[in-house]
């Protein structure tokens, strides 16, 4: 397993230099531009930029292997395909966490050098904020990876994006349809509302430790399901 992760970093070293240079540069430029134009960092926009950068960087290893058709080499080595999949998740998670750390370090340096007091930084740079962001990134990658193992990197990322956009459209659409049907059908929509409120109340009532356990549990489950699907797809893939 370690050999596979090591191989990703050896094969991708040239591109990793690009990540090390590009992520702090774009992070700093984005922060500087927002502070200059709007007088402060817009946390949503900033987070979105950092997330896109980190997710894009996590595809480097897959991109390199795809460009050189290296899957053939590794699939012919004495390793199970499931291990190749597992190692790919680990190396991509390491790279994502590393990229995010670079972005956070850039943020820290901005605060330190310019003595910034923007309250947005308190959220971005808090331990809870950093951990939440990294876990959220892992969740997004876990959503995308099975598509890549099924269709390859180009088609896989496109399929995952289409699926994400469809979900984003589907949620308000379902809400709209339910509202429209409320007067026509005899569904007890209040029941769903009560369920939702109870769940929210329960989550708010959790201690910090309980909340962390819950979040880690959900994220681990999503990652495990994702790995399971990817292994299934990759085992059946013709190389």
């Amino acid at each position, binding site marked *: 397993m370690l*050999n596979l992760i090591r191989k990703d970093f050896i094969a991708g070293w040239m591109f990793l230099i690009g990540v090390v240079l590009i992520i702090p540069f774009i992070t700093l430029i984005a922060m500087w531009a927002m502070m200059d134009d709007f007088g402060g960092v817009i946390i949503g926009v900033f987070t979105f930029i950092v997330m896109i950068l980190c997710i894009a960087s996590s595809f480097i290893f897959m991109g*390199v292997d795809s460009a050189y058709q290296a899957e053939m080499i590794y699939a*012919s080595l004495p*390793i199970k395909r499931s291990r190749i999949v597992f190692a790919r998740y680990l190396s991509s998670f390491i790279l994502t966490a590393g990229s995010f750390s670079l972005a956070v370090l850039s943020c820290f340096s901005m605060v330190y050098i310019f003595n910034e007091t923007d309250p947005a930084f308190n959220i971005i740079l808090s331990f809870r904020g950093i951990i939440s962001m990294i876990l959220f990134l892992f969740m997004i990658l876990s959503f995308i990876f099975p598509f890549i193992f099924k269709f390859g990197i180009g088609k896989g990322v496109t399929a995952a994006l289409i699926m994400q956009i469809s979900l984003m459209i589907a949620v308000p659409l379902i809400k709209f349809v339910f509202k429209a049907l409320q007067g026509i059908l005899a569904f007890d929509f209040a029941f769903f509302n009560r369920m939702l409120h109870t769940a929210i109340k329960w989550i708010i009532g959790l201690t910090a430790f309980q909340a962390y356990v819950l979040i880690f549990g959900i994220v681990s489950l999503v990652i495990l399901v994702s790995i399971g699907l990817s292994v299934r797809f990759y085992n059946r893939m013709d190389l």
Partner: protein
Amino acid sequence: MENVLEIQKLRKNYGDFVLQDVSFSLPEGYIMGLIGPNGAGKTTIIKLIMNLIMRHGGNISIFGKDNLEHEVEIKSRIGFVYDNPNYYDHLNLKQIKNIIRPFYKEWNEKVFMDLVDQFELPLKKTIKKFSRGMVMKAAIAIALSHHADLIIMDEPTSGLDPVFRRELLDLLYQLLQSEKKSILFSTHITSDLERIADYITFINHGKIVFSKAKDEVFENYALVKGGNDLLNEETKTWFTGIRKSQFGFEALTDDVNKIKKNFGSDVVIDRANLEDIMYFSNLRNNHA
């Protein structure tokens, strides 16, 4: 004599191409040449042996074990060279070797370095500066450095100059003489096989035409030349592919005795080489 590789009724369906019930076996310590025109199914068979693609039927047994159930154990004993080795071209050979070496317990650094010297490969030059021949040499050096018992090569001599092709064939022959290794070698450069192969498996349009000892192939097959007047509906069926011109016909037979008995001195019978066999068999298939 134990079989190192046994394939039974192997099937793979690509939609526009079907590999149909392929069966053959390679005894331990021998070289088998897998021949056939481009698109015949040679690479598909090799990919199925290496479990790079999924099979739709049949069995593959390597070292007496199923290639799916014992995949890791089997692959650790196989040296594999595929037709278009795409190594990361921004890395050098030493880096490539360092990536691959940890996966093989039996890796022998001395063997690798000896092969690198023998093939005159630069260790610190990036792969993108290698010629196709050098890349193939690098792939062969890597495949031969972990004491593999079975060496599988998909078109290893294509793109190589005749001098290196001869060197490679000599090297494979030496390997076989000094150690009990077996080699499966696909190619459409049939002269390479005539030099070193013990067995020939000929595949065309996804079907096995024959899988026999090389000597048996050359004993049975022959090129027959004669006048067009000798050909009629019955005699045509005695040949595997016929090429006619205004001066006469040239055809391949797999039953020399029958031709001698029926035509006597009316025809000229020459030894058929593998290229002739491939060419005429393809003619028959195309006209079938």
